[in-house]
């Protein structure tokens, strides 16, 4: 069954790492829906959230291929782990004298915010799941969506586990440790 898989990927914060990950998905013809990257609570470690359409075998292959990148520290497919998924959008919508209050009402219903007001347009900021943002977009369309920008999905699993603290980032290793550590392949 093909569905959207969400991967949380910890990588070394080094030049070119994003390129390596993106190149892998392109080369293997995996279909990325969104990829976000940013710093973590830990210096030298970045975190990517990658949403990708795949079946189960495909998802396992993606994980295996990610581990083959030397700069990748940890990969987790959190698709079936209880998680909070968020996307952020800013939507510039046409707003006339008459439509303005209608739009404001919609903004309230969706718990979005107006972050800029111009004579003939508004900028709305909304955070939520992709579905929720899609729905808001749907109801705003009739008013005239002028421009939109979205961050793509970011994700974090619920509860206390995980985070980068448990990750071994380039631990000192002697060649005799080889059995325990490996550049996968």
């Amino acid at each position, binding site marked *: 069954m093909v569905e959207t898989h969400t991967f949380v990927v910890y990588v070394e914060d080094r030049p070119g790492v994003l390129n390596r990950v993106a190149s892998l998905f392109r080369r293997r013809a995996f279909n990325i829906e969104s990829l976000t990257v940013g710093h973590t609570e830990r210096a030298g470690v970045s975190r990517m959230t990658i949403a990708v359409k795949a079946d189960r075998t495909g998802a396992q292959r993606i994980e295996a291929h990610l581990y083959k990148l030397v700069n990748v520290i940890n990969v987790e497919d959190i698709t079936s782990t209880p998680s909070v998924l968020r996307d952020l959008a800013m939507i510039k919508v046409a707003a006339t004298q008459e439509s303005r209050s209608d739009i404001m009402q919609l903004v309230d219903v969706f718990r979005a915010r107006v972050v800029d007001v111009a004579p003939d347009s508004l900028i709305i900021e909304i955070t939520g799941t992709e579905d929720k943002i899609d729905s808001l977009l749907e109801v705003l369309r009739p008013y005239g969506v002028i421009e939109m920008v979205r961050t793509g999905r970011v994700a974090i699993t619920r509860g206390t586990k995980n985070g980068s603290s448990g990750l071994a*980032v380039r631990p000192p290793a002697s060649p005799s440790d080889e059995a325990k550590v490996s550049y996968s392949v």
Partner: protein
Amino acid sequence: MTLTGAQILWESLVREGATTVFGYPGGAILPAYDAMLDYPIRHVLVRHEQGATHMADGYARASGRVGVAVATSGPGATNMTTGIATAMMDSSPIVCITGQVGSHLIGYDAFQETDITGVTLPITKHNYLVTRPEDIAPAIREAFYIAAHGRPGPVLIDITKDAQQRTCELDWDGAVPKPHKRPGRRPHPEDYAQALRLINEARRPLILGGHGIMLSGAMHIVREFAERAHIPVAMTLLGIGAFPASHPLNLGMMGMHGEAWVNTAIQEADLLLAFGMRFDDRVTGNLTTYAPNAKKIHIEIDPSEINKNVRVDVAIVGDLRAVLEELLPDVAEGDRSEWIDSLASLKGDAAVRDIQNMPDSGHLYAAHVIHDLWHATDGNALVVTDVGQHQMWEAQYYKHDQPRSLITSGGLGTMGFALPAAIGAKIARPDAEVWAVVGDGGFQMTMAELGTIAQERLDLNVAIINNGYLGMVRQWQEFFYERRYAATPLLNPDFAKLAEAYGLTGTTVTTRPAVIPAVQAARAHRGTVVIDFQVEQEDSVFPMVPAGGDLHAMIRRPSPSPIVETSADP
């Protein structure tokens, strides 16, 4: 110890065990070349940087050690890409060092600037752009580690000119590779149990032996395994040599040009044991009809290979040798004579069609040349083949009993591979009798390396299988394009004279009786001999499973073969 980056480069290579590098100088790598003279390194001056990478590859495949190639920035680096991609596809451990323009010039389209780490991203296991001398030793130590560990592969290190020129302290101990911990890759005990169950219950099992046997050093244990459980073994092209060809359990090569009985065995087997092979499409043919009756066990070090082409019932991710060591004690001794005898009976039909058993037509056939070469060298040569028909005939008719005695470009199918790879192999194993077996087309792609042979005074031999065609492509045109020979006939030079022009020895052979004497003369001669074997022009490799076709529907050599008349000069 304060050193220049260039000195650190050689110091590190020497400490990693490199004794020979294959290279070609230029502006951006000049500081490194200057420093090289002070280190115990043999530098082999190639004639094209592609040759350097194939030599490093041949060196690695012949010896199991990491091969090293060196080139300058820009065109020197881009010339390496074919060899890097070849090593990537066939899991060969090489380290490529390239010079790069000064770090302050990067991004400014400086003279001979190419983003070679960008270019080689998808064809290296890993690569580095090094802009500071401090980073050279760590990059080299890590590169050697990555190239040789897990599933081997090529690593490229691009070093800016200023990083070669500036100085710093060499901190060797601080440069130790620090790999990340990976989550548990240990095979599950349940996987072992299930594998054992399948093995011990199978009535028609078959081992598919691949290149991974050699890479893992599992030759001995695979043999013990096969003998104990009485299971026949089929080889991939790159697996050839990992299990002795003369062993009664060895069936021969599988796949597109594999033996007919081997492919039949695969289709009839009830269990396939894939040992260090990756179910390449030239091995499986049509996936939907592949081995329909067989359960499959895949022992493989690279998790991304599992369920890639063929869905398997049990996957054990790990080093083949380690996994087999764990499994073997619980494998029941078996007697599978019935299955093995039934396979042997299939060979009768094939023998009738085998060109070796046909009456002498007076024509010289490539398959005869290979057969005689095998005979004359007692099967002990280290053969390096190029890509095409001759490559398949070599795989079919040279019987390899020793591991690492056949070196060939399988995954990328790189024409021009044989001559430089044979040079690398000879330098890695000076005591081996090395033969390059190469087509008239592929030879002309890298024949400039005859110059390298002459300059290095190497003693290897070259058998050109000269059919006047890009034979393998001609064969496809014959079978699938109504004999419309678009761009496949070749007008060739006099190869023997060409060899002489380089100060080597050249001979030409046109008849069967002249084959063995020519081979023996080449063996007795100190120095390289190039033999131009002028063979039947329109012969084809049989059997053949058309690309994507069913393994059991092979195109067979007509029996008995009507001898095809040699066509007029192309």
